[in-house]
């Protein structure tokens, strides 16, 4: 088996090392960061479809909101979850 290359990224302020070729979603999930986001009414949510349709896995990667299941890990990424709740709830 070829030697695995690694990426170092920051998840919610914590540096983690993950295998290259995995998704940011997997990195968040493996780090135990659940829920991934809060819904409009404040519910805890996690990834659903895993293939870019449902948008439940959105998080902010380097100041841009992305679907983390479609986003490969890269060295130096900074990842933050969308935990803000609708201001009127």
């Amino acid at each position: 088996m070829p030697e695995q290359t690694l990426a170092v990224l920051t998840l919610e302020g914590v540096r983690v090392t993950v295998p290259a070729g995995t998704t940011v979603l997997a990195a968040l999930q493996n780090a135990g960061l659940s829920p991934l986001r809060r819904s409009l009414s404040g519910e805890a949510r996690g990834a659903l479809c895993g293939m870019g349709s449902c948008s439940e896995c959105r998080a902010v990667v380097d100041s841009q909101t992305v679907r983390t299941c479609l986003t490969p890990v890269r060295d130096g990424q900074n990842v933050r979850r969308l935990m803000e709740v609708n201001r009127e709830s």
Partner: protein
Amino acid sequence: MNAIVIGGGLVGAACADALAQRGARVTVLEPGPVGGGATAAGMGHLVVMDDSPAQLALTARSLELWEALAPALPKQADYHGCGTLWVASDEEELAAVEPKRQAYLAAGREATLLDAAELARAEPNLRPGLAGALRVPGDSVVYAPAVAQFLLERAGATVRREAVSELIDGGVRLESGEMLRADVVMVANGIGAVSLLPGLPLRQRKGHLLITERGPVHVHHQLVELGYLKSAHGNDEDSVAFNVQPRPTGQLLIGSSRQFEQPDREIDWPLLRRMLRRAAEFLPALENISALRIWTGQRCASPDHLPLVGPHPHLDGVFLATGHEGLGITTALGTAELLAAQVFGTPSELLKHDFTPARFDRLPEVAHA
């Protein structure tokens, strides 16, 4: 009294409600979903505007009526009193703020001047170096399709999903061929009025809107550049202006564009880009969020930018409520009050101004300042 209202947008719904409050039995004819036309396409900004004395009177009175209605509105109407900031880019624009403030105060609307530092504190995401703003705290935003539905229910109106093919003496003929009789017929179907009454001085004026995802960029007021109508949308050419609204969901609604003679629904990508660049000049942080949906809609504009509200000059029993251009949501309630006053002879301060369709017989074309 039996009344027919043609059009189930917010103007039609407000008219139906006003007529029902005064005892009329109302049938609303709307082939599409309630509030599915221009009502759904617009921003839902409830805003006092002072481009003419008549416009100021109509918008100011309408805002009073919205404030009175607000406690009864359902949650899904998303009524939200965020106020408007009229943003001045430079000292020259800022100089225009004081007369505007005086006009608002005279119309009974609160308005305060923010200097550059106060503006930066109120809206930290605006770019540095802006001169100041006029803050109009009584302005609001609303989700108009839900209000239209609410008003129709409150009116106890019969809503029939049918289109009108023509106006006939004492009623209407439906596309199905059926004839409906009524004491009064309200034509409140926006630009659709032209197909029933050819020759009305109405034109479509297309606009683009974009809504962002819920994101890290927050604003607290509806933000509009001070030159919104006068310099930005003041002539017949394609135009864009900075106009951003915070939705209660944390999303931003971004406008605005105006284009005559573009009756299609297509997105004009280069114009959209111009519109967004204008917005990003004021709110540079927009670079960091994503668009969720982009759509277009058609405003229904009259030559003097005032709606046509009142009796048709030649057809007995036919009243018009159309031609609101970009202010149909704001002025729907004032329009309905005015129309009810005309139908029932009840008092309204708005009767002092001439909104009647007949004004165009006297004034075929009015150049607006």
